[in-house]
């Protein structure tokens, strides 16, 4: 019972996902649309909160057992609680009943997003430019014929993409476009076929109940 019902459901809803590609009959399109908009959407909405539960539990645990860097878990939890209150009660752009403005100073959710989440997120990835530069100097070697071919192509692309490349020769940017349109497409399409067949196999095995790891540990 614990496995037969889930496996039956995964098969039924798998078929519901496949059929509308093969029939445009209003009854089929309409019923699949209802299932997607009303069942799948609402069911999935709960999953969003689930990930949150485990995150908070990890950090409460870290504080209770005072594991290394437990002090920062307080920063995480306080940051979460304060921003949730401002967001839930204050509304997405300050339209809620909790006042999110004192004089000219606004602090509703959109302000927090643009001034805390955006700078932190984009600076995190800006670090990569430095790691790239350091790796370029100390690790990227033409250690084999393959690596040499890779680096030569990369140099052509890196220069061809720049306005400088256009000044060196008007043919360079079009040569870069040629590399992207022909050899690059050929290799990525060849690799892509393998990945497509792999994901097709995985989806099929899930629907037919052959792949069961998603059932989780407890049998």
């Amino acid at each position: 019972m614990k496995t037969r019902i889930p496996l039956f459901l995964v098969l039924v809803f798998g078929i519901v996902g496949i059929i509308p590609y093969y029939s445009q009959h209003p009854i089929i399109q309409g019923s699949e649309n209802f299932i997607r908009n009303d069942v799948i959407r609402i069911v999935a909405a709960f999953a969003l909160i689930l990930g949150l539960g485990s995150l908070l539990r990890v950090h409460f645990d870290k504080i209770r057992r005072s594991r290394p860097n437990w002090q920062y878990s307080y920063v995480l939890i306080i940051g979460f609680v304060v921003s949730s209150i401002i967001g839930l009660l204050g509304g997405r752009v300050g339209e809620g009943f909790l006042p999110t403005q004192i004089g000219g100073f606004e602090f509703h959710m959109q302000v927090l997003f643009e001034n805390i989440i955006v700078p932190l997120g984009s600076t995190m990835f800006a670090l990569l430019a430095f790691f790239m530069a350091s790796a370029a100097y100390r690790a990227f070697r033409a250690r084999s014929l393959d690596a040499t071919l890779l680096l030569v192509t990369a140099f052509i692309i890196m220069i061809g993409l720049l306005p400088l490349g256009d000044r060196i020769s008007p043919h360079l940017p079009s040569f870069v476009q040629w590399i992207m349109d022909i050899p690059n497409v050929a290799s990525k399409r060849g690799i892509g076929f393998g990945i497509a067949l792999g994901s097709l196999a995985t989806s099929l095995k899930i629907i037919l109940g052959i792949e069961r790891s998603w059932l989780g540990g407890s049998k």
Partner: protein
Amino acid sequence: MVALILVGLFALAPPTNVQALDTPGDGGEAITVEWQLSPDDNIIDGYEIHRSEDGVDFAMVGFVGRSRTRYEDNTDDGQEYYYKVAALADTVRTFSESSPPALSSPQWFNNSALILLIAMLIFGGIILYYIYVARKGKELYIRKIAGLEAVDDAVGRATEMGKPVLYVIGIGTMSNIASIASINILAEVAKKAGQYETPLIVPHSDPIVYTVAREVVKESYTSIGRPDLFDPDKVFFVTQSQFAYAAAIDGIMVRERPAANFLIGWFRAESLIIAETGAITGAIQIAGTDSVSQLPFFVTACDYTIIGEELYAASAYLSREPMLLSAIKGEDVGKMVIFAALGIASLIGLLTRFPILTIFQ
């Protein structure tokens, strides 16, 4: 101007044989009108489509350019329509005979999806056949991946230099296929390291992958009769933060100076930091991942790179696990089908005038 003068002298010849039929294989509410070109097609502007519900008074519903013979009209199901097509040159138009009445209705099968259905049955059939065959225990051959020789050499070299081996599984979770494939390769590396009694360090960034890997390493040591070699301090959980994990591994590389680094699994941008420090410490580095965006960096920073699907093949080769073997074999035969489709379609496309591309629309 010339067209007008000509037209003024002779009346325009109208399009002929106007047919109206329910658009096949659609969701209804559409009628396709077809006709034969008017003999004066080359000098007219185009064709006007006129519709009537009683066959008497017609109103214009559409217009198409010269030398076009088809038009799809949006209609209401359950209402009969008559159609006339007029050849139009500037302001002069001549009407064709009216078509017989037509009624639009939905069909259950969308026949433009026929090729998609055939492809699904072929590829699905191949995959299921090999699952069935693998389950029955039939011997399935897979060639040895060149990367696995590099793995053996690397562990051998670390033993000669009396230095530990570092195995990094990346930041993937159990839902990443690359992490699962990496665990199978870890089992093999642990056996090799155990035989040579070379220490094996395995830092983790995902708690679940960590618990699975610990069991795998312990089981590998017992399978070569050396359960005593398992050291819990060598297989440990570091942190879930992407960059802190990379920084911690750099620390291990600089302190422990492993002679062989395995970077096999799911990686993202932090791969740069790890591969760089490994290159500086002079260790042999074997990388393997299916995250295509990181592969270029591994190829230039590491001594050997297992590329994309080779990782799945290596894991199947080592573990001999039926499900993994059936996946590789099924996909191989799928590739054969793609080879065949490319070859046959190209022959047809080159040698005959048949518009082969419309098949794959």
